[in-house]
């Protein structure tokens, strides 16, 4: 009950206040009119410099060039930055930016200073691929360059003194090569000169290959990585009938299987 009484009182107070605010005031006097402007001849203000500035093309690859062109009016002092410097009012310049560059032409003139920008976007070409790795030599090539033929006396398959030296060197090379070429097998071919019968020479070539294999195995080459084959006199290196050629054909030769 008492709450309603308070609200009614508040409403009454606010109504009174509003009624008091709405009371009319007296209007102010009008301001004096503005003074008449004084007419005077004044020169027109100097024009600001006019600029056209472009870069063609706007995108290049690193190493290529772009051409900046400009035409400037109403300017006394023109410069292009970066890297170009003062220039004439009209001209062009080739530039070789290494990175994306925004060139700014600044023209100062009586009318002020104006500047324009033109960008040359520099794309970096993909780096060249690394040079191909040195080609891996085939087993045949390695054998041809690192393993030497060993030579024999006429109608003999004994390992001569010089053949011992050759085969010792060969054993080191073959061990190294067989480590590089896992699973490879080296074939020892036995060859003969032309003098014995072709049939007997097939046997003699076989003996030479076997003798060389036995020597290499003694030197520590794994026997199961070696194989033998007789060519007799079927595959001569040379065909002349003299001791020089005969000796060249009395040999063991090493090839890939």
């Amino acid at each position: 009950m008492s709450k309603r009484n308070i609200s009614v009182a508040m409403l009454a107070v606010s109504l009174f206040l509003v009624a008091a605010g709405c009371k009319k005031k007296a209007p102010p006097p009008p301001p004096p009119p503005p003074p008449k402007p004084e007419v005077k001849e004044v020169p027109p203000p100097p024009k600001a410099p006019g600029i056209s500035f472009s870069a063609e093309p706007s995108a290049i690859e690193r190493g290529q060039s772009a051409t900046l062109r400009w035409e400037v009016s109403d300017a006394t002092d023109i410069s292009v930055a970066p890297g170009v410097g003062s220039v004439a009012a009209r001209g062009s310049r080739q530039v070789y930016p290494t990175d994306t560059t925004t060139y700014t032409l600044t023209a100062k003139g009586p009318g002020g200073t104006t500047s324009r920008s033109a960008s040359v976007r520099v794309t970096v070409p993909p780096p060249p691929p690394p040079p191909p790795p040195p080609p891996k030599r085939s087993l045949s090539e390695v054998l041809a360059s690192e393993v030497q033929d060993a030579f024999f006396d006429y109608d003999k398959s004994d390992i001569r003194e010089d053949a011992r030296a050759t085969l010792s060197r060969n054993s080191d090379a073959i061990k190294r090569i067989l480590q590089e070429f896992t699973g490879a097998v080296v074939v020892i071919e036995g060859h003969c000169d032309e003098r014995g019968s072709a049939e007997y020479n097939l046997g003699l070539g076989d003996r030479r290959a076997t003798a060389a294999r036995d020597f290499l195995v003694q030197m520590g080459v794994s026997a199961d990585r070696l194989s033998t084959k007789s060519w007799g006199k079927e595959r001569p290196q040379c065909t002349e009938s003299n001791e020089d050629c005969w000796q060249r054909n009395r040999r063991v030769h090493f090839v890939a299987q």
Partner: protein
Amino acid sequence: MKRKSTLMCLCVLAGLLLAAQQSDVIIKITKGERAVIALPDLRGAGEAQRFMDAFNQTLWNDIESSGLFKMAPKSLYPLEVPQRPEDFRAPLAAPPARKGQPPPSPRRLGPWLTDWSGPPVNAGYLALGYAADQAGQFVLRGWLFNVGQQDLTNAQVFGKIYLGSLDQEGARKTAHEFAADILAQFGGASLAGTKIYFVTERTGRGIKEIWAMDHDGSNQRPVTSYKSVCTTPAVSPDGATVAFTSYVGGNPAILLHSTETGRRLRFYGPVSSMVATPDFTPDGQKILFSFTINDWPQIAISNVDGSDLRRISYVRTIEVEPKVNPKTGAQIAFVSGRGGPQQIYRMNLDGTDVRLLTSGEGQASNPAWHPDGQHIAFAWTKGYAPGNFNIFVMDVATRSYVQLTHGAGRNENPSWAPDGRHLVFSSNRSGGPQIWTMLADGTQLHQLTTQGRNTMPVWSK
């Protein structure tokens, strides 16, 4: 001076006689004296004439190289050559002789037997005939006359008609057949129809293929085309299979091919670092060869399909070229290094009773049994530098031998013709190695090949 030259003549004559005697000891070429035969060029009617050069050359070659005849030289033949029996004209009998005057000679009416039996031809036999093209065929009529006879009926040995295709091949075929019939009258087997297999390098450098040709070198044709090394061929006794070593699979292996179809036959032989020199037993059921067993090239035997492989020799040396005696099938001649340089030995098929056949001098190789099973031909450097082989023939029982070639280059791989009187071999006497034939006395040399290098001939029936 005169005495010296006479002496020299005598020496040469003695040498020749000795050589002839030696040859006779080894292989009998003829029974008794050789007959003299006149072989005038036959002519052809119509189209047939185009092939008469090939015909006459083939006929002459077959008859001459048989070694059964002495050839009466053509330059001595009479001008009038009969072409058929009807061309003969018996001379008129001479009138009885008058007293005190030489007997008159019979009156000649035309070609007669005495034109050939008398001087200068002095022939015992005359082959005559002619060819014609008839119904698109090469038709040969051929006769053989014994010109020592008095009348035609007795003189004619035989007369036959032979047919062939109307080309060089047909002409050669009828010539071979006519020659075979002539040779048959004298107990000589014709070589017509026999074949010679050999190794040729004519198809490419470093490539060896097996080829075949007729006995006179004609019709040379490939048996293999592996574009690899094929070598040491052998032919089965029935002529149906050729065996050889081939490197086509990388490592050497024995391959067998049918000579008729050219197809490869099944043979599961060993693959080794060395497999070579196959040969067939006379029954054609087994094959011998050399291959590396336990590091040594040794002799082994297996069935013709490769099964039942057994080792025959057990010597730590090189043993190759096992060749089975074609008569007995129980012995082999082979080449071994067991005594030093390569020599020829014999042993039984089970490896027992090994004996050295050659003397140990030089190098000996390529034993080839004569069909009689008693002689071998082989190559030997005895008396020459290493590699300079000559052909020899040896009586295996007595070890006596005769040398057939004498230092004319390198002569190897002799092989007997089925007639047992001819040999084929390779020789580089004309430059590169080529295939040659000769009589078993070293005469009648004929070069059969010219293209590329040709070696290792094998004469097959």
